[in-house]
Every structure is written in C-alpha cells, then in structure tokens.
C-alpha cells in the first residue's frame, strides 16, 4: 500500500455558500477539504465543481458515512463509490470518523459512539483494513465528539486510537475541538489526551467551535474557534509540529473572508510554535 506524501498547510472546508468564490477568484488556502458524500453522486454540477476546485487547490476527502465501527462491516457499495471518487480527485488523503453510523441496514446519519473494548477494536481494525484495501491507500481516522461513554469501556479513547493506528497503519485527523468537547463531557483532561496520541501518525488537525447544551457541550461547528480550543491547538502544535490544519464550519456559515481571518490566526499560532520548536532544538 502506498504511503501518504507529507503535506502541511492551512485549509478550509469547501461549503456550498462559498462555491462561487472558490471558482471565481484566488482563495488564499493551501488545500480544501470536501465532504466525500456530497460528491459521491452520479453526475451533474457537484463533480464539475469539484473538478474545477481541484485544478486550483489540493483536495482532502473527508467522509461521514463509512461507519468504521459497524459490527456488520462496511458497505461494499459505499466503498466502491468512494474509490471512484478518490480515483477522480487524487486527494491528499481520505478520512472518516471513529464511530458508527448504522447497523443491519439502518443508517442514523449521525456519528454514534463506540465502546472502547477489545471487540470494538478488532471490528474497527478489520473495517479500516478493508477500507484501505479497497482504496489502496491508508486512511485518516478522526476522533469524534461524543456524548456517551459505555460501562463496557476497557480503555481510554486515546489508547483505543493508538492501538488502532498500530494495528492498521492508519493515520490520524485530530479534531482539537472534539477532544475538548469530549473531555468536557466525559471528565478527562484534553491535554492528557493529546499527550498520548501517537504524534507520528497525525497528518491533519481540525479546528472548530461548539455550543453549550443543557448539560453537555455540543459539537455544532457553528461558532468561531473559542479560546480554550486555540490553547489546546497550541499545545498540539508543540507536540505534532506543523501538520495540515483546517477550520471546519458546517452551520451558520459566515463570509469566506471571516474564515480566512480565522485561518490566519491558526497560521500565526503554527508559526509561533514552529519558532519555539526551532529555538528548543
């Protein structure tokens, strides 16, 4: 299986309100990330838009429906479609979430949590190996935000992720906001989480905002990156170095210029962290 080419830069998620700007002018990003499923269609305008954007920017494919943790395995029709898309786009990488979305023919279209057990680890690893075989490339696994933990849990999420990387050769898309949200919801230290992630596997980071629900933080992706997540990002930068970073906004999507400004803030922090690392070495 081919390895992933090293890539670092600052990108944005390509969202429908910004399509025209991405097609008509130079947008100062190093890459764009697209939701794979939005372009796993038969034809029409979406593939044309993606082809045009691909001519201007490297593209990362980010999925929400692989259902990596499903006890009944991955859907062959899904993988086949994703392979077709990957062949068309030649993406930087293909990512999806450490979660399951459905089982036995049902699909919730939500990122449902997994118990961190030996059985779940075996299931996740088998499914990742299957996906990597079909796609003929290693995938990136993203840590989800979660609102539940299970009494069956035998290990922490970061232990589960480290084991998954070791057993499958997959890489990581570390969502810093998700670490923060899950940490607040389940009472773990987000800094301890990041300190235990296998640094050499992290290829990309997500930054986003969240909302406060009645009892839990909710990963709504509808707010600017808050200070607490920026602080965690700075810690992650010191640990992982300058890996590709993306601002993720899925709701209440602001003007592109606002997201570019937010991305510049990530650049500045990465630059500062890079200087620190150089000073320290």
């Amino acid at each position, binding site marked *: 299986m081919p390895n992933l080419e090293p890539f670092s830069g600052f990108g944005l998620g390509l969202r429908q309100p910004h399509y025209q700007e991405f097609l008509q002018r130079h947008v100062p990003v190093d890459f764009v990330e697209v939701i794979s*499923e939005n372009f*796993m*269609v*038969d*034809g*029409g*305008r*979406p593939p*044309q838009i993606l082809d045009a954007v691909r001519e201007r920017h490297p593209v990362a494919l980010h999925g929400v*429906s692989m*259902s990596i*943790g*499903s*006890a*009944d395995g991955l*859907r062959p*029709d*899904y993988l086949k479609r994703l392979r077709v898309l990957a062949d068309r786009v030649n993406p930087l990488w293909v990512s999806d979430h450490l979660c*399951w*979305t*459905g*089982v*036995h*023919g*049902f*699909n*919730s*279209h*939500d990122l*449902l949590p*997994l*118990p961190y*057990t030996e*059985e*779940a680890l075996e*299931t996740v690893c088998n499914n990742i190996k299957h996906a990597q075989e079909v796609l003929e490339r290693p995938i990136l696994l993203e840590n989800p935000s*979660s*609102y*539940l*933990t*299970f*009494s*069956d849990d035998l290990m922490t999420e970061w232990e589960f992720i480290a084991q998954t990387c070791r057993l499958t050769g997959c890489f990581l898309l570390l969502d810093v906001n998700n670490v923060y949200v899950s940490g607040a*919801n389940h009472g773990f230290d987000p800094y301890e989480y990041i300190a235990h992630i296998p640094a050499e596997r992290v290829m990309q980071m997500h930054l986003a905002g969240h909302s406060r*629900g*009645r*009892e*839990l933080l*909710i990963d709504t992706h509808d707010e600017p990156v808050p200070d607490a997540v920026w602080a965690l990002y700075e810690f992650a930068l010191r640990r992982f170095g300058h890996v590709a970073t993306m601002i993720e906004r899925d709701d209440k999507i602001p003007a592109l210029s606002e997201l570019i400004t937010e991305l510049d803030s990530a650049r500045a922090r990465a630059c500062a962290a890079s200087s620190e690392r150089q000073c320290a070495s």
Partner: protein
Amino acid sequence: MTLGDLQRALVEHLLTGDRRISERVRPQAGLEVYHHAYRAQLLGCLRDTYERVWAWLGDEAFDRAGACHVELVAPKSWTLNEYGEEFAATLASLYPDDPEVPELAWLDWALRRAFDGPDSTPVDITALDDLDWEAAEFRFAPTLRVGAVVTNSAAIWSALAEDRTPPAVTQLPEPTELLVWRPDLSPRFRTLAPMEAHALKSALAGATFGDICRLHAARSAEDNAVAAAGAMLGLWLRDGFVVGFSAD
C-alpha cells in the same frame, strides 16, 4: 453484551426511545442528545430536499409533517440524498384534501434527484438521417421522470421558487402530466399536453416513432398526425431529453 447487540440497542433507542441501553451508558443526557440529533438531522434533510413544500406549508406544519415522516420511515442508504423519497406519500396521507401538497413534494424530489443524477448527452440531430424510424426505440435521459398532477402545483412551485406570491390552488380541467429532466447542469420541468404525455409514456415503454405517429393518427387526420408527431419529436430533441435510439 456484544458490539452488535449494543449497537442494535442504541438504534432501538434512536428509533423508539427504548431505554434498555441506559444502564450501560453515561451520562443519561447523552442519550437525549443522540435521540434529538437523529431527528434534527433527518428533518433538516427534508427541509433541504423539499424546499417548496416547506415554503408552501410554513415552518410549523412542515416540521409536524417531517417529524411524522421521520417516525414512519428510517433511513437505510449511506447517503442522505436518498432519504425522503416516500415523503410525498406521507404528505398525501396527512393532507388527503390538499393534493397540491404531495404534488409539490413529487416535483421537489424529482428535481433534486435530477440535479445530481447521471449525466447524459442529447442525441446529435445531424446523425439521424439514416435512422429507421419504424424500428428505432427512444433512449431518454436517465434523469427523466413523469408524474401526474390534478392541481396547478407546477405554477405554485414556480412562484415559490421565484419568491413570488403563489397563486391559489385550482383544480386542473383534467389530470395532467409533468415532465422533469436535466439536459445539462440545470434540472428542468414542464407540463405535458395530454397527447404528448400519452406518446412519451408509450415511448418510455418501447414505442417507436412509427408507433407514435399511429397514436396521433388514431386521434386526428393522417396528414395532421404525421405533422403533429414530427413537431412533437422536434420539441423533444430541442428539449434535450432524447439521448439516442436503440438502432443507433
């Protein structure tokens, strides 16, 4: 409890609110988050797909109908694009005296499916000179759909799409067919005249152009029939939904 059992139990909670999973998870508030998110996601999908129905019914009535549909129909496909296909049937049962509501839903759905449906290229008219019109069967754009309406729902849909005040609902003098297709990148629809609808449905079932001429002849004088069938064929070719002939 195996992983499969646990996943089935959580699905059961999402679908029915069954709380057997609750003793194995914490915090309990998390169950409510997923229970709510499942419904919110699907309702959002219905709002996105059925934009004109939403505009016609208004927020409250649409969300009530959407919530009803979500309880009736669980998603099966990996793609949200396929969720909501049966929403027109749900609306028909909720609005038995308002046929324009499921008709608007049919139009919303057909146009959405056409939007990212398979590409096709209209047939090259200059390459038809040697075609055996008696034997050649039509091949149509894969996005083409025909649906029956009894109200002016097409006019209502157009007004809503253009942010105009929609006309009042009226019954059409006779049931009519709407045609949806995508010749290039933009889906289109138009109303079919009765004879054209009959001919198109026959062609979809395998009728040749010769067969269609005879359909016209059965309704008018022979000279007029050939001219009428020829005019109709010209319209279909210009509309771009004929993509070939089986004898190509």
